[in-house]
């Protein structure tokens, strides 16, 4: 073990960590955008409506992320119309955008499945009450079901974000210099795989730690109504 080597690699690795976080948050954002309509359709009663999202979710959850990434980055260039398209090719020839697209599609499938469970966990009485008040079906979905489902899905979404952080290491297989990719580049120069990968591991752990804390804080903030009310004499501030 050589601490100096680990420290020398740190600036480069932090640079890579920046790209890792960028990939994580951008694909996390698009993943949620994708997941909401998927989950609503997947929770539908009608077989025709839920068949397509079911197949989509099954494919993306049943195959490795590496295969999906290679299908987008290497696979799509097999088709002449993609290579000749002035719109598609500038995007799909960039590993950065391929990673964003694949990670969004991948995490979108997982989030959709989480959200579907949450939508189905919204108490039926609340939906009936909204309908009884004369809300339209779309209004009920947007104002009652989805906000409730978002709160229910939050802890599971946190887990998915952590899994996606670890999944983003695969970006290094399509030449991107994320944290893992940067570690491999540094090793090509210093020939110190153990120290460098360990340092990268420590940075991943640190990111995980901060993410877990941040999610716990958000969860705490949005569940004020579910905490026990302070009890005791009126006018006396509860301690702690």
């Amino acid at each position, binding site marked *: 073990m050589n601490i100096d080597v680990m420290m020398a690699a740190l600036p480069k690795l932090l640079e890579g960590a920046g790209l890792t976080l960028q990939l994580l948050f951008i694909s996390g954002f698009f993943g949620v955008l994708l997941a909401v309509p998927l989950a609503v359709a997947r929770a539908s009663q009608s077989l025709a409506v839920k068949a397509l999202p079911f197949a989509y979710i099954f494919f993306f959850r049943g195959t490795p992320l590496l295969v999906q990434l290679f299908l987008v980055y290497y696979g799509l260039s097999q088709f002449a119309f993609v290579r000749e398209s002035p719109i598609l090719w500038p995007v799909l020839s960039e590993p950065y955008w391929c990673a964003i697209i694949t990670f969004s599609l991948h995490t979108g499938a997982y989030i959709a499945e989480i959200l579907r469970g949450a939508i189905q966990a919204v108490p039926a009485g609340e939906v009936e009450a909204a309908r009884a008040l004369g809300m339209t079906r779309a209004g009920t979905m947007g104002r009652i079901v989805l906000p409730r489902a978002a709160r229910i899905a939050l802890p599971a979404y946190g887990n998915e974000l952590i899994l996606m952080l670890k999944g983003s290491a695969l970006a290094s297989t399509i030449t991107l210099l994320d944290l893992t990719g940067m*570690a491999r580049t540094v090793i090509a120069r210093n020939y110190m795989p153990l120290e460098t990968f360990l340092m990268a591991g420590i940075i991943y752990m640190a990111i995980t730690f901060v993410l877990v804390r941040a999610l716990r804080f958000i969860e705490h903030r949005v569940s004020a109504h579910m905490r026990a009310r302070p009890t005791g004499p009126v006018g006396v501030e509860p301690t702690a």
Partner: protein
Amino acid sequence: MPDLHGFSDQLLLGLWMTVRLALSALGLGLVLGLAGAAAMSAPMAPVRWIAHGYTTIIRGIPELLVVLLIYFGSSVVLMAALRPFGYTGYIELSPFVAGSIALGLTFGGYASEVFRGAFQAVPPGQGEAARALGMGRIHIFFRIVLPQGWRIALPGLGNLFLVLMKDTALVSVIGLEEIMRKAQFAVGATKEPFTFYLAAAFLYLGLTIVSMAGLAWMEKRANRGMPRARAS
């Protein structure tokens, strides 16, 4: 199965390698998971710390990094460990062994949490009754706690196995000739990346479906004799 320019045999060989890798990682992972769960409830605090440290670290770093760390890092560690004994040659783990260790370590880290939860769900009276009958600690574990905890642990372990099987694709990065690596060779020869990566995707989907069916059968078997609550 379609011919795929004559590469279907190669892909099937890759499939066989993927299955072997998944099963050997599963074996190691189950042993590590059981040991981890046992260590987490050990009477000595340092043993508990090591077990908690293991699961925290393995769950916090990417699987790909674990694979790379084991494959490239193990040479350094093994050579340093053997130098005092006069061995100075170059040592390298094969991709299969390194991949099995890396995926087994990952599986074990998550499995120890699954086992811990399952064993805690076995009523303590069961163990006490076994003690009163004069059973030793090892007998209590293998004859009373494990058979009952297994039933509770199985759904969690099943999920982990599905994850493990998809993670086997990562071992292609260190050159093991499993499904992904074989697909890469085929792509190199035919210049048809979409065809072969899609074929690989369907092989993984097939593995997932077969495993899910197998797990459902095992869960049904593990639950035999349990009274089933009716929903309505």
